[in-house]
Structure formats: structure tokens, C-alpha cells
């Protein structure tokens, strides 16, 4: 047992700054990708209800395809594949984009469920006082949708946070890749990867708890 603990004592001071920096990268990557996926997801959800048949088909197709393709394939296509036709990203941007495009589908489905949960009468009352459809959406419908889907959105964020670990496979220096580098240098994969796991847990767990606390608040 002491064999297991010893490396932490000996190297802890060296490892801590490395891990902290990696946590920051992971956090930045996840938050950026999530914010972007919210935008894409809302746009997709609007497309689903659009009047244009082309937009509707596009949105449905997008969601079906993205739900059936592994995130890793999307990341590899973006980072390794696109340079072949002239488009290059740096790894971090590629990862943000890939995660956002993938999770946009999930977010879109959440928005869709949220929109369906709002009674028709809400929109009618908005029209009756003279709101335009745009005003009705931004002032009356959207705020209510957001309230309804906040908890599932947080769960989606935690998923995205975990999946950000795949960015390590396209050379982004986040927690897992940092862990790999450290493991190669110190030959202590067990201790190091457990520490990496702990780092993820420390970031993700508060959000998981938060999402569960928000669920009973159905208003």
C-alpha cells in the first residue's frame, strides 16, 4: 500500500502544476465547445421547425448522422482529414469545433423537447397582446424553454467534459495527453492516471450534483 502512495508524496509537488495547467486546458476546451454547441443546437432546433422543407430535412439528416458516428471519427476527419483538401485547424480549434458539431445534435434534441413542452396558449397570449412571432419567441417562449432544459443541459455538459478527453488523440494538451506524457516520463502510469481521473472527477462531479438538484424544480 505504501508502495502505491509513495510516488504521490515524492512527486506530488512536480505533478500538481502540470495537472492544474492541464485541468485549465480541459476546462477551457469544454466550456468553449459547449457554448458553441448551444448556438449550433439552437439553430438546428429552429431549422427543425422551419417553414422551408430543405432546412427541416437538413436538420433531421444532421442529427441522424451525427448520432450514428463516433465522436472520434468526427475529430479525426476535422483534424487529419480536412488538411487534405486545404483546410487546417490547430488542434485546440479542431477539438472545439468537433465537440461543438457533435454535441449540437444532442442540444438540438433538448431544445426540441423543451419547445414541445411549452403550451400553445403561451404563444397565443403573446400574439393577442400584439407581439410579433420574433418577440413571442425571445420574450415568452425561449425563457421558458431554457428553464425546462437547464438540468439536462448540465448533464450534456458533463458528457462533453468527459469526451474532451478524446482531444488528447488529436494532440491537444489536455488532461489525458498530459497524463500520458507524465506516465512516459515517470513510469508510474497507475498513480498518474488515477490522479488524472481524480482531476476529471473534481471538475465534473459538482456539475452532476447541480443537475440533480435542479431537476425537482419543475415550477
Amino acid at each position, binding site marked *: 500500500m505504501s508502495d502505491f502512495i509513495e510516488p504521490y508524496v515524492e512527486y506530488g509537488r512536480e505533478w500538481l502544476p502540470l495537472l492544474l495547467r492541464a485541468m485549465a486546458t480541459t476546462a477551457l476546451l469544454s466550456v468553449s465547445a459547449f457554448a458553441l454547441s448551444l448556438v449550433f443546437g439552437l439553430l438546428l432546433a429552429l431549422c427543425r421547425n422551419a417553414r422551408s422543407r430543405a432546412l427541416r430535412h437538413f436538420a433531421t439528416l444532421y442529427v441522424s448522422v451525427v448520432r450514428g458516428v463516433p465522436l472520434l471519427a468526427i475529430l479525426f476527419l476535422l483534424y487529419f482529414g480536412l488538411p487534405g483538401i486545404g483546410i487546417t485547424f490547430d488542434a485546440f480549434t479542431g477539438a472545439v469545433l468537433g465537440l461543438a458539431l457533435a454535441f449540437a445534435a444532442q442540444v438540438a434534441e433538448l431544445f426540441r423537447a423543451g419547445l414541445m413542452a411549452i403550451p400553445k396558449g403561451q404563444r397565443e397570449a403573446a400574439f393577442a397582446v400584439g407581439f410579433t412571432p420574433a418577440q413571442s419567441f425571445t420574450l415568452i417562449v425561449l425563457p421558458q424553454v431554457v428553464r425546462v432544459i437547464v438540468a439536462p443541459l448540465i448533464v450534456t455538459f458533463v458528457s462533453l467534459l468527459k469526451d474532451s478527453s478524446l482531444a488528447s*488523440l488529436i494532440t491537444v494538451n489536455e488532461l489525458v495527453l498530459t497524463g500520458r506524457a507524465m506516465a512516459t516520463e515517470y513510469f508510474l502510469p497507475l498513480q498518474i492516471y488515477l490522479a488524472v481521473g481524480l482531476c476529471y472527477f473534481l471538475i465534473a462531479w459538482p456539475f452532476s450534483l447541480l443537475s440533480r438538484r435542479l431537476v425537482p424544480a419543475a415550477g
Partner: protein
Amino acid sequence: MMTGLSTFITVLDGLLAGVGVTVLVTLASLTLGVILGFGLALLRQFGGLRAIHFLIDAYCEVMRNIPALTHLFILYFGLASIGFRLSAITAAILGLGLIGGAVTCDLFRSGFAALPNGQREAALAVGFTPLQAIFAILTPQALRIALPSLGNYTVQLLKDTSIVSAIAAPEIMFYARSMVTSSFQTTLIYATVAGLYLLLGLPLTQAIRFLESHYGRLKA
């Protein structure tokens, strides 16, 4: 055109070598996950010991808040460094299965929680023992309720097996990555990978839909 087609066939051929392992890992970890998860759910929902509840909760929290990639590295590289050398496929199945246990535990628990108290009370009232009540009355209903979520989880699992390429398990993505280094047909290869997973997902979604229609949630 012919060279395009023949390249595609070469790529496809290379990828198909990995399908067997992809399917194996998916089914094996699914089985492990479901059995483990169901057992944990029963213990958590109907077991008496508070300590067990706490342990199960802790297990689920830990497994669900750490990425699969990290779990896999711990099992494959971490254990190897202290003498437990697992094969890549074993580590893959174990890793995804243990995570699956946590995920399905939550799913099954939700299923049980959705049942009104009256169900159990009625069972006890006719003289069932608690154990009989659980297996004869509650479990069938809870399973029906959990079915759609289980279906979603299975589809996700199929995609997640691509991660095990990172510990060199010879499944589809692993072959894809090896081919990329030697052929430079990067876009074609990964696009074909995407298509392959989409295709593999189809019979899976069909099977789930079939199960849902035949054993799905009973309407009151």
C-alpha cells in the same frame, strides 16, 4: 473512377477486419454492464444496508464522472505496471463494462422509482414475499420503462468502442488509424469509418425498436 472505387474497396476491406472485435466488445461490455447494473440497482433500491447504498452511490458517481479513456488507461497501462497485464480486448470489455454497470444502474433505478408504491403493496397484499414481488411484479415493469434509455445507451456504446483503439484493441478505428499512416487517404478512410458505424447502428436501432414495440411501456 475505377481507381477511386478500388481504393474505396481496399479501405473497406481493411476496416472490415475490425468489425468482429467492435461487435465483440460492444456485446460483451453490454452484457457485463447490464448484469452488473441490474444487480447494483436491486441492491440499491431494495437492499437494507445503508453502507451498501453509499458504496453503490460512490461507485456510480466515480464511474460516471471520469472519462472512459481514463478508465481504459488505468486498466491497461496502470494495472500492467503493477503486474496485472490485461489484453487490450479484456481491458476494453472490462472498462466499458464497469462504466456500463454504473450507467445502467441509474437507468434501472429510474425504472423502479417510476413505479407507484401501490404496485409493491398490492403484491405483498396477495402474499408475495418481498423477493417474489421484486422479480414477478416490479422488475418486468421497471425493465419496460427503462427500455428506451437502455436502447440509447447501447447505440452510444457501439460508438464508444472506437475509443479502445487508443489501447490498441484491433477494432474498426484501430485499423483505420493504421491505414492512415501508410496510405494518406485520410478523409476517405475516416469517412468510410463514419459510414460503417452508421451502418452497424442500423440493425441495432431496428432491434431496439422491435423490442420497444413488443415489450415497451404498457399504457394504463
